[in-house]
């Protein structure tokens, strides 16, 4: 079966992203999503929030983590991501 896709949507920073939608996408209860947002594990930036919420769902299921474990893992993974981006830039263009 071959499907030509014409409809797709950017998940960008200007698209609204309420906690209820994040909860539905990640299968987390809305209260837990709000807790993850409140502690900074899920960023308020909508595009990144969706990605983080889905990562939270994968980490919870695959590593059998509780909410605090998910929050810590998300925060550390984002920090690693930022540092790797910075390292990559510095490798190409040293100061």
């Amino acid at each position: 079966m071959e499907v030509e896709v014409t409809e797709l949507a950017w998940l960008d920073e200007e698209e609204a992203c309420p906690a209820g939608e994040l909860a539905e996408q990640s299968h987390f209860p809305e209260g837990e999503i709000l807790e993850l947002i409140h502690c900074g594990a899920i960023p308020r930036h909508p595009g990144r929030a969706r990605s983080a919420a889905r990562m939270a769902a994968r980490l919870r299921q695959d590593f059998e983590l509780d909410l605090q474990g998910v929050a810590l893992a998300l925060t550390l993974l984002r920090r690693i991501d930022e540092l790797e981006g910075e390292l990559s830039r510095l490798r190409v263009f040293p100061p």
Partner: protein
Amino acid sequence: MKFKDYYASLGLERGASDADIKKAYRKLAHKYHPDVSKEPGAEARFKEIAEAYQTLKDPEKRAAYDHLGKHAPGEEFRPPPDWSQQYSGREQSFEGIDLADLLAELAARHSGGAGRGAGGPIRGEDYELRAGISIEQAFEGALLELNLSMPEYDAAGRLRRVPKTVKVRVPKGAADGQRLRLSGMGGRGFAGGPAGDLYLTIGLLPHRLYHADGHDLLLELPLAPWEAALGATVEVPTPGGKVQLKIPAGTASGNKLRLSGRGLPQPKGNSGDFYAVARIVMPKVWSARARELLQELAATTDFSPRAELLGEDGHGS
């Protein structure tokens, strides 16, 4: 149906205890989980590990799996004659069935009919994919062909793997890590439920010339010492075509020269910026005349590049 050796996937013997199974899974998941691992092929390896764990951690699924007997991985096989009666409660064809789907279906049936066919409409699964595109494709847009194998329920409520080719027209404006949602392109819904969505994460492939930072592009621009000192107009490649760039006199290595709006386009219509990062390069061979001129320059200039190190005034003429 092709056999999968779930014990071997986790590096275990058949008689492994539940604790051993959990321990082996956790160890391998830490190594290969696609959200934490940078190992090549980690995603495929993790799928194999997770599939094995989903079966072996569940006593009913493990018993059904063990009863299939031992076969070589990838070997076409049929379950023993009494297997269907004992575990699925019905005769069925095993042609084209994925072992994991079969075991998942049995577990759902045993857990009180939670499988398809009971209850109301069920939304299809969402799926996530990653795709790499070049900087040129991000600049111009790209047509990607994704070959998927999606589990779908047939009319009788049985899971089947259905090959599916999805052509995705990625509009210009993608940046590294940006995500797209393809509505309704995920798993098919059941009993009137809507289809799930397919999420596509775009990765920019490394480029020979450019380095992307969001929608900005950086290019290392080699300059001759006299071009940097005296200023020059040089030709610079950008994804949109070559441009003439004016180099100000006195440009130092590492100086960034900005070409506004010449970076990657953004979905809403603006574009990032293009930065040429100056790098002063020396000729490998100097002619005798060039050496004379350099010696003359050295003799008539009191500039000291190490003045700051020595606490002196380094500005010469």
